[in-house]
């Protein structure tokens, strides 16, 4: 009896394992990096951004909390979610993420506590709702002094925690390029990638802060300050420019050298036509709009629709960048003998609906955080 078994491979013999959820994961992480960096800029260099520091801190908390949501959905087994923190493994780059993430979370929580301490004490004494009063009383940790000395100490603690948080956030964004590099695709196997992706993340975070600034000022009826928008837009402009320029230079270099990566890009661009187009055209468009917004704000006018367009474009562009890296790295066969295609399903754990829910999660959490720690005092418009 012959029992011949067909051996060998049918190329391309792989599939796309990391779907749209793994795209969202570095995306959220890079938004956190950007927001924390904006906070550090406000804390250390730009005194005119002091006005938005509470806003940035409370809005980065929901993003930090939901950063692990896509991973959890992708891997399943939520009962094991806690194991990453209590099984540190220093020989695995991915496992170090747990340590960096916890550092980031605790630094952010500490920073938030010191920043809102005066508010917490005030509300612990004056709150009418007894449950809320108890909540704030527990949060004060029994410290009620809010004199000049104590506030000075608070500021010092915030400065130290911001430094820790900044380092942690930049380390955190290394996971975003790890997802490209791990697949060892020649396109993404480049030393310039970490820098380029940190800059992309900074731009996305800054754009998110701009959007949230518009939203919060609308909700709390606070006057918008042109110099805040101008400074933010200026930073976002240069971050975006750096990210775009680095990627473009890299690609042009590949094309000039006729590198193996150029073959990969040529193959992949058939499958990634839309995200690549979004990345290039969107970057240029966002840069134009941002410079115009800056110019207008310097003259004291706030052009709200243009700010919204620029911010949303940057958020979409950075999402497209992450898509190109995570999905693009998996499309090409390692032997360069073909490619697979990827279309995310609509339903299911890895589907588009789940992805949208994960993307919306921080924005749903934000009002809850803002309810307990309002960034501004709500001003009621006088009705005559």
């Amino acid at each position, binding site marked *: *009896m*012959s*029992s*011949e*078994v*067909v051996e*060998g491979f*049918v*190329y*391309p013999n792989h599939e796309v394992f990391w779907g749209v959820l793994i795209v969202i994961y570095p995306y959220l992480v890079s938004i956190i990096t950007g927001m924390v960096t904006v906070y550090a800029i406000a804390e250390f260099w730009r005194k005119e951004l002091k006005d938005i520091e509470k806003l940035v801190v409370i809005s980065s908390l929901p993003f930090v909390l939901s950063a692990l949501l896509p991973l959890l959905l992708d891997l399943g*087994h939520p009962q*094991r979610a806690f*194991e990453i*923190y*209590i*099984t*540190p493994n220093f020989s695995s780059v991915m496992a170090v993420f747990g340590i960096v993430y*916890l550092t980031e979370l*605790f630094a952010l929580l*500490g920073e938030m*506590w*010191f920043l809102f*301490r005066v508010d917490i004490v005030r509300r612990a004494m004056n709150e009418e709702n007894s449950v809320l009063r108890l909540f704030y009383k527990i949060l004060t*940790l*029994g*410290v009620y*002094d809010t004199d000049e000395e*104590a506030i000075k*100490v*608070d500021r010092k*603690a915030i400065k130290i925690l911001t430094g820790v948080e900044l380092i942690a956030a930049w380390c955190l964004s290394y996971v975003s390029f790890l997802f490209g590099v791990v697949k060892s695709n020649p396109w993404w196997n480049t030393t310039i990638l970490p820098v380029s992706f940190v800059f992309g993340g900074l731009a996305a975070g800054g754009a998110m802060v701009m959007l949230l600034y518009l939203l919060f000022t609308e909700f709390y009826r606070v006057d918008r300050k042109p110099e805040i928008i101008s400074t933010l837009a200026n930073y976002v402009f240069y971050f975006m420019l750096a990210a775009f320029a680095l990627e473009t230079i890299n690609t042009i270099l590949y094309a000039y050298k006729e590198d193996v990566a150029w073959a990969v890009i040529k193959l992949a661009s058939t499958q990634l036509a839309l995200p690549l187009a979004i990345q290039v055209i969107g970057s240029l468009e966002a840069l134009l709009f941002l410079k115009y917004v800056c110019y207008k704000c310097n003259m004291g006018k706030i052009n709200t629709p243009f700010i919204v367009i620029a911010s949303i474009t940057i958020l979409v562009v950075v999402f497209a960048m992450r898509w190109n890296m995570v999905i693009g790295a998996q499309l090409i*066969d390692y*032997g360069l*003998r*073909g*490619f697979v295609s990827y279309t995310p399903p609509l339903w299911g754990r890895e589907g588009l609906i789940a992805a949208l829910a994960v993307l919306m999660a921080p924005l749903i959490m934000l009002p809850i955080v803002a309810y307990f720690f309002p960034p501004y005092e709500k001003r009621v418009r006088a009705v005559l």
Partner: protein
Amino acid sequence: MKQVERSLIVFINILIIFIIAIFGLRVMGEEVYPGYADRIFGVKGIYGKSGEEKELEKEPIHAEGREDCRKCHQEIYTKSNEGKHSFDCQTCHGPLGEHPSTDMIVTNSREFCLGCHRSTIGRDPAAIRIVNNWEEHGKGRLCVACHDPHSPWFD
């Protein structure tokens, strides 16, 4: 300075809980003190196994291969051996599982066949039969309506 002290106390308490959890689990496991938990509790290390191992242990493995299928399906086994589809039954039918008591899953859709027989860049036509005009060829019908999956016919 009082607030800094208080917040540090809270932080250090959280840190201690984490460190206790880490070292507690390590001691229970096999990584740091191999066999330690076995000696104390008389059981295999609670944390010594990875999550996959724990999951896999629950399910007995049932992927015995084609020789196991032969016990009952001698006819199909012989037929398949002589034809072009002389690979393992699991390739299309999946692992055996609890088979005699449960039904096997048999997919007979066009997409399932085209998973291998569609033309793709780099797929070698010498190794595998490629249906280049699959959109027209036998349109609207299942592949298995004409081709016997156990011993497919070729011209």
